[in-house]
């Protein structure tokens, strides 16, 4: 294997930042609070002294970085778990430093992060299904937005959450259908179609919101909302109970979707064929796999998932539709997809991390921290650039993604 020093160099850059943070760490301690209010067993808050903690994480990061240099000189790949440890160390260090002298509500932060991550995860899964089969999906934003709009409209008219969710899935699937038809049948550049479809959907939803919906907001934009469902026993577990098992149906659907997409993609014949089409369509065609049909199916299935993710905005969180309410979530989902290397599980992790960064920003703006919130919001985008530049391991997508297949 060719020696690549990109990963250790990337880690070293972050290590220097970590070192600088530790040198300038203020004295004091940060209080970590784990209580959300519904558990049976209460965990006491515990204070962490800032300076030793900061140095601890810097040393941990230093060890990982040194190890990665060693591996790279031996021409070995830097494994993913090392990257994850490194990321966690830096994130925890920054948290301890950000909340010095204050209380950091761990459980509540994680709850909020999960809520922000749900549409990102659905969107990233849509991207996985689409790009693994060879169609670049820039249109995740449009699929989310269409799902949000359709679910709010249909759930308001019918009063049925189930119908709202189905409408979201169908509309997300249809938006993906536009992407599929133009990129598969008309062989238009997939990136162009994706960008244009996003704007088309922003235009359509905003247009009908301003004309039709606002005329009768009560009848057309007041959908019921999903209630939280406590799963017996599991929801009583400290920290993770209220976090994971006291959620709305959409979140449970999300767990299911992540598992199903992962298993279907990597453990079934269907998934193998799908990936074959995304890597080498000609070979797939030769052995009798229907390339076009597989592409349409997978792209639209992904769109349906993104649509459900969009419904989370209206039926799960806000309770009504507003113009451009997804505000770039589709692009963050795209970032999560790339950061997660087109793998459903890793993409989910990346989406959770991005959701965490977004949520941290809103918590910081409440506690009045002097870190400008814009910089935390930039994090997903900046990290994605770092990722595609190959500084944290090699990022390569499916080989045939972006290339139209022309049957000869």
């Amino acid at each position: 294997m060719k020696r690549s020093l990109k990963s250790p160099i990337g880690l070293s850059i972050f290590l220097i930042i970590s070192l600088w943070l530790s040198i300038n760490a203020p004295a004091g301690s940060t209080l970590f609070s784990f209580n959300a209010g519904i558990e049976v067993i209460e965990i006491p808050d515990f204070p962490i002294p800032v300076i030793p903690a900061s140095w601890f994480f810097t040393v941990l990061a230093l060890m990982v970085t040194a190890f990665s240099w060693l591996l790279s000189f031996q021409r070995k790949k830097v494994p993913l778990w090392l990257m994850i440890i490194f990321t966690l160390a830096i994130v925890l260090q920054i948290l301890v430093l950000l909340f010095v002298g204050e209380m950091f509500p761990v459980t509540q932060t994680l709850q909020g992060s999960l809520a922000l991550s749900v549409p990102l995860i659905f969107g990233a899964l849509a991207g996985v299904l689409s790009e693994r089969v060879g169609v670049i999906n820039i249109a995740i934003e449009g699929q989310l937005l269409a799902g949000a709009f359709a679910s709010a409209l249909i759930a308001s008219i019918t009063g049925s959450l189930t119908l709202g969710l189905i409408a979201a899935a169908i509309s997300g699937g249809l938006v993906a259908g536009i992407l599929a038809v133009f990129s598969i049948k008309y062989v238009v550049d997939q990136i162009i179609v994706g960008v244009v479809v996003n704007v088309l959907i922003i235009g359509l939803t905003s247009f009908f919101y301003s004309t039709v919906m606002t005329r009768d907001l009560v009848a057309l934009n007041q959908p019921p909302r999903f209630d939280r469902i406590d799963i017996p026993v599991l929801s009583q577990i400290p920290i993770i109970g209220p976090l994971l098992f006291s959620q709305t149906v959409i979140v449970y659907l999300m767990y299911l979707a992540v598992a199903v997409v992962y298993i279907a993609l990597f453990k079934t014949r269907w998934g193998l064929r799908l990936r074959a089409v995304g890597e080498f369509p000609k070979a797939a065609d030769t052995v009798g796999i229907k390339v076009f049909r597989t592409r349409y199916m997978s792209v639209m299935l992904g769109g349906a998932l993104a649509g459900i993710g969009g419904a989370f905005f209206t039926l799960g969180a806000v309770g009504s539709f507003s113009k451009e309410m997804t505000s770039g979530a589709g692009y963050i989902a795209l970032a999560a997809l790339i950061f997660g290397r087109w793998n459903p599980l890793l993409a989910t992790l990346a989406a959770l991390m991005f959701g965490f960064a977004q949520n941290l920003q809103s918590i910081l703006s409440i506690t009045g921290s002097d870190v400008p919130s814009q910089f935390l919001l930039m994090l997903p985008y900046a990290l994605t650039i770092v990722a595609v530049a190959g500084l944290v391991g090699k990022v390569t997508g499916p080989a045939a993604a972006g290339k139209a297949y022309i049957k000869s």
Partner: protein
Amino acid sequence: MNNVVKQIFNASSRLTALAILSAFLIGGLLIAFANEEVQITSSYLFSRPTDFLAAVWNSIFGAYDALFRGAIYNYKALDSVSMIKPLTETLTYATPITLAGLGMAVAFRSGLFNIGGTGQIIFGAMGAAWVGFSVELPALIHLPVAVIAGVLAAGLFGGFVGFLKAATGANEVIVTIMMNYIASLLLFYVLTTPLFQAPGAVNPISPEISETAKYWRFMGEDFRINASFFVMLAMVLVVWWLLNRSSIGFQFRALGHNPSASKVAGINIGITYVLVMAISGALAGLAGTSQVLGAEKYLTPSVAASFGFDAITVALLGRSKPFGVLAAGLLFGALRAGAVIMQANQKVPIDIVLIVQSLVVLFIAAPPLVRFMFRLSDPAKQAMKFEGAK
């Protein structure tokens, strides 16, 4: 001249015209569908169908009439200023759209996708605005310095993407998309710092640009049209020269046609990537300077408006040729200007512009679809002509 006539009557231009026509037709149907009068009359469609048809006609005609009055010539206005203002507004909107569109066209012709128009416009506007309000220079020097500052900022911002691609192979589409968000957030941030925020302002807005740094409003303060319009026209010629007559342009196009062959031919691909993206970004940055030093007098978070996306559509519609981009820029400038009046008079939301625009691009990109919709005969021959025209 003969060339122009040929251009108008060849198959590719006919498809372009049909694509624009279809987009407007669908836009009209949406306007009718969302119209309150149409919805009311449709409830008794079968007893009095004429009411329904009249309502449909009124809604569509009313909207497009307002669009025309807002974009070209307001024949209903009472004074001469209001009558000719629409046309100048069209040209004002067309200026940044075309400039940024030229930037995207340079990248497209070189085989690179620059989706980062928004971010580059923002950087151009930030650079120009900062020199414009915080530096004091004599009249004739201030404006060029401010413009150059904006162009440099955006050129470096764009060139960085080219550098990343050359050095690490990072996909420029993903990087530019992410850079758009970074630039927007950065703009919002700097507008809350004393460096950029107007003293005493609560909103994120910069101080007013100094008089010495503003583009000349040659039709008076009643009109927003300014000298940046001529800069835009000049840049159309410059980009035409660059792409078609200069040796750098030849390298750009060679790269766009076949990167491997260009490498074999001795073109330094890495440097060319950086150059392409820097020039592309610089042109988008010029669009930012025209916004902040010309049409508007302040830097605000919405300085890039939707020009970043407009630029992509304009480059596609103009088939990445400078004069095509100019024509497309004028069309979309007219749409933007007209939509403002359409929203005010006919209550048709401005979002209809986005719909029409994206439909135009989708139809342009898929000639078979347009041929199918209009039942155009002899598709094979048409296709050959279309390939030939490219």
